[in-house]
């Protein structure tokens, strides 16, 4: 775990709390590898859409709705950080 990916994960946690209005949750309450949807935080499909919009806006993430791997990308903070890092590496 390098410092850059750790920072990215922390930023994603803050974004999740802000964008999804999770009033009672702190960034440290979100486990990097825990599922975001269904179990874990208990987020729903509207949260998934809202998070997609927020990630696009803040990290310039490109998402294709027909990408078969999208569910896996949105599984956890860790998988989202990986996706953003991969896209950044490809653009670099």
């Amino acid at each position, binding site marked *: 775990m390098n410092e850059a990916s750790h920072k990215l994960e922390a930023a994603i946690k803050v974004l999740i709390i802000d964008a999804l209005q999770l009033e009672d949750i702190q960034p440290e309450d979100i486990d990097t590898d825990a599922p975001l949807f269904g179990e874990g935080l208990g987020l729903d499909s509207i949260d998934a859409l809202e998070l997609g*919009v927020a990630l696009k806006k803040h990290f310039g993430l490109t998402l294709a709705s027909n990408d078969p791997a999208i569910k896996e990308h949105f599984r956890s903070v860790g998988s989202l950080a990986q996706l953003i890092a991969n896209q950044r590496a490809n653009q670099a």
Partner: protein
Amino acid sequence: MNGFNINISASAAWAPGLDDAAAWRAWPGKTLPLDDGSAPDIRFIDALLRRRLGRLSRMALHVANRVAAEWISLPTVFASRHGELSRTVSMLHALAAETSPSPAAFSLSVHNSAAGIFSIVRGDHAPSTALAAGDETLLWALLDATARLTDDPDSAILLVYADEPLATEYQSYSSASASAHALALLLRPGEGIHLEWTENRVRAPTPEPLSLTLLTHLLGQREKLTWHGERLSVDIHA
């Protein structure tokens, strides 16, 4: 003559600075307190469901719960002149700025947002309507609610009215300036208050919405009140 009777067996109202029944009893004859932007307590709703709700729905759900808490099931009428217009405005701003509108805002921008959340929270599948009818919204919501009551003495229906100030962009299109407030009424079969409407040809519209005139009557201040709208005048009396 156009009129009908309503029988109100319980009521609750909320506006910024007017939190409980005692505050409302001291209110008639005054204008509403300055709107500080506050919203009422809706902790009866689970945090995950509550977090996305805007002030209009929070006000509606708060008063609804105060009246309906002891009822397992109640049909409902949710009424609002402008509804969740502020959400539509925020989405239009996003589109104008060529950014994506919020999916969460979109999901709750419909007129039956509060009705839907109320049904989910209570696990109540009773029928519900969501109405808007200009400055006469409350009158027709009362008629809808009354018409849906049956002769069964156990019959009851919950009417919830809520409004909030119009977005600046729309204010020049409306004659009345809406203030944030919500009113819930539990209606039962029977007579109590008579409402009668006539065409309003001459009188300037009453500056307050019909909901506040009805509240003044309910608070026992005046035996007979007349409210003038853009199209109709409404008499309220015992």
